[in-house]
């Protein structure tokens, strides 16, 4: 296991949330770009394969390009245009702002995914219960629900197939909408049945009656977690200082 994978999930989650929150106040493109580089490095250090990262970058970048485009064009309708390409006017300040939002989004996206890639869901729930006082009566059902997700896509395909074979013929927009609702109702009644059974099975193993619950998984904070937090703080401060030193740093405060 890599250093990142061994870190306590709550600590990791706090770091990701903290850095993401900070990035929201930054409006230049260079600073989030620095963070993006670090995020990609962290993902690689956390054991993510380059192809996995590349595949995650594709949709994030497409979304980002949408931001860049709409901001550049939108800004040009408000102020003087910098460029005119055919019927399209765009402004440099808009482009800069769009780029900042886009790169910020990609950086936060890769940071969050790095968290997901290096965190075991069971560890996350146990750690949240023990370190953030998340009630176990919420945490464990969440975990049980997480198991459902793959069944859901499977079942949805089955329901659609079954209805199509019987001759469900959605015609027009209204018909399609009605068909989607019917499919959803069938799926939900299945899910309700499943959830009820799981709840019964959990209670049959003493979940409802549990008072002083103990944990099989350990969620002990290690020295490595302190090292990780200190490292994250130093790195964040360092990047901000670097960005300010080259004169790139712009925040919402000006």
């Amino acid at each position, binding site marked *: 296991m890599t250093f990142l994978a061994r870190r306590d999930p709550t600590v990791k989650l706090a770091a990701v949330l903290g850095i993401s929150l900070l990035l929201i106040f930054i409006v230049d493109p260079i600073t989030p770009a620095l963070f993006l580089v670090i995020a990609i490095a962290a993902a690689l250090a956390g054991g993510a394969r380059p192809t996995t990262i590349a595949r995650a970058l594709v949709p994030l970048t497409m979304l980002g390009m949408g931001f860049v485009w709409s901001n550049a064009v939108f800004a040009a309708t408000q102020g003087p245009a910098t460029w005119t390409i055919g019927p399209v006017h765009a402004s440099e300040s808009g482009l800069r702002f769009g780029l900042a939002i886009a790169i910020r989004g990609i950086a936060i996206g890769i940071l969050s995914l790095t968290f997901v890639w290096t965190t075991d*869901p*069971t560890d996350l729930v146990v750690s949240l219960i023990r370190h953030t006082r998340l009630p176990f009566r919420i945490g*464990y059902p969440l*975990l*049980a629900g*997480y*198991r459902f997700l*793959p*069944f859901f896509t499977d079942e949805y395909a*089955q*329901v659609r*197939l*079954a*209805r*199509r*074979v*019987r*001759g*469900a*013929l959605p015609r027009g927009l209204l018909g399609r909408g009605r068909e989607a609702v*019917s499919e959803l109702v*069938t799926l939900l*009644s*299945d899910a309700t049945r*499943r959830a009820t*059974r*799981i709840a*019964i*099975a*959990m*209670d*049959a*193993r*003493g*979940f*409802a*009656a*549990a*008072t*002083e*619950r*103990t*944990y*099989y*998984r*350990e969620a002990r904070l290690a020295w490595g977690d302190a090292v990780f937090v200190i490292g994250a703080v130093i790195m964040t401060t360092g990047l901000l200082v670097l960005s300010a030193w080259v004169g790139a740093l712009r925040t919402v405060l000006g």
Partner: protein
Amino acid sequence: MFARAQSLTVRHIGRKRPALHDLDFEWEEGERLLLLGPSGAGKSTLALCLDGLIPHALDAHWESGALTVGGRDTRSAKLAELTRDVGVLFQDPETQLVMLETDDEIAFGLENLGLPRDEMVERVAEARASTGLGPATPRRLDALSGGTKQRVALASLLAMRPRALVLDEPTANLDPIGAREVVTAFAALAMRRERSFLVVEHRLDPLLRFIDRVAVLGEEGRLAFAGDPEAIFMGRAGELDRLGIWQPELAELARLLGAERMPRDVGEAAALLIDRWPRGASVQREDRVFGPITVAARGLVHRYRGDDRDAVTGASLDLHEGEISAIVGANGAGKSTLGLLLAGVLRPSRGTVDVSGDVAYVFQYPERGFLATTVRDELRYAATIGRRIARDPDALLERFGLARLAGANPHSLSHGEKRRLSVASALVTSPSVLILDEPTFGQDLRNTRELVTILREERDRGTTVVLITHDLSLVAELADRAVAMADGAIGFAGPVDELFQRSDLARFGLALPPAADAFARARERDPGVPPLTGLDAARTALAAREAVRA
């Protein structure tokens, strides 16, 4: 006495009839009790009461009577004490596993008990050992087969060291290999006699050796009768039959041979056959004359999007008018995919399917395909999309025992009724090919018999019938031909008795049903015993011999 119910009446919320009605019931400490009853007789309700979930975690009307478990009155005892005493293994592995990994799952109940971590580690190891979950068992639950998941669920109960275990249809959702896995694990526990067991099950043959007593619930949630297995299965077969309760094949075989003792396993049944089978009594393979080819499949290949291997690979097959074929094989062998390709629901990646006429497909979970809000409209749905209604819907409702439910919502029906409705609405257009996916899955004896009768009628009308099934007893009774699949390919296609005589059945995830297994084993020692496929064939052989002698 471990548990005793006295005039117990429990009614579920929103139901008119009580699930348990004036029930008197006893379960001795250390006893291995088999609980039987038709569907809806209250078996699962009793299981939930024994665990204290009714009334502590699930609301129900406790109308009268009392239930004591482990010396405690379940209504005044604490749920924590009751769930510690009694563990319940439910039917579906998918809806009783809570965690993502094996060890976490086994520890879940121990965490609820508040045990220190060291003790949990010790008990997890102990529970894994007693259910045969070795180091090779994958860590992640989603990588396990159904049978292994069910063993993990069993281990998670054992770790809590309960005084008693209730197993509520533990193999009903599994294929034959998975069922055998669970029965083996249960047998090992039952042999050690360390706790009391109550088993609800309908594959009875493998359990006969491990059962001390049988209790039978009647139709109104009352105790019908109880006694030792031999007295019940040899002496009260007629009553069990009337109640629609599955019986062990081996006991029925023994009765056919006029024996008084019940064989407790296949070995004993084989010895009985060697001793008593009238030599010369056998069946000739019926050379049925089929009509012309209705479905011709050539070189079918299908790969689902995102998969890295073919679900069906190079399958060729001819189906005829008036022929019942059974597609058999392990889970994931490609049976359902082949069925969907034959039905034209899936398009093959390569290969062709030629069908003369139209195909109706009945899914394993019929409620997923219900499109109307009443039973009658469901049956007539074909007309609303422009298909021709070829049979009188009212006559079909009558034939399928659904006439009094014509105005009901299809989703409100029982399992058996839903299944019958889905078959009826497939037949309303009088299709030339009828494909059914796991038609007997979760069905009781009465529904299964009814289905067999209906499918025979269809065959005689000239319909091409295809069953996709794990149930080899059904195949032996009903099918003219078996198609066995392994890893997406058809590995065998031919008469059922020929399939049963193959030595590589396990390659297809199959195992001989108990009666056929007894014949096969008897024949190994005495070639004078014929290789019959099951009780149906045995009955035919004995009747034919009687006729000759008369």
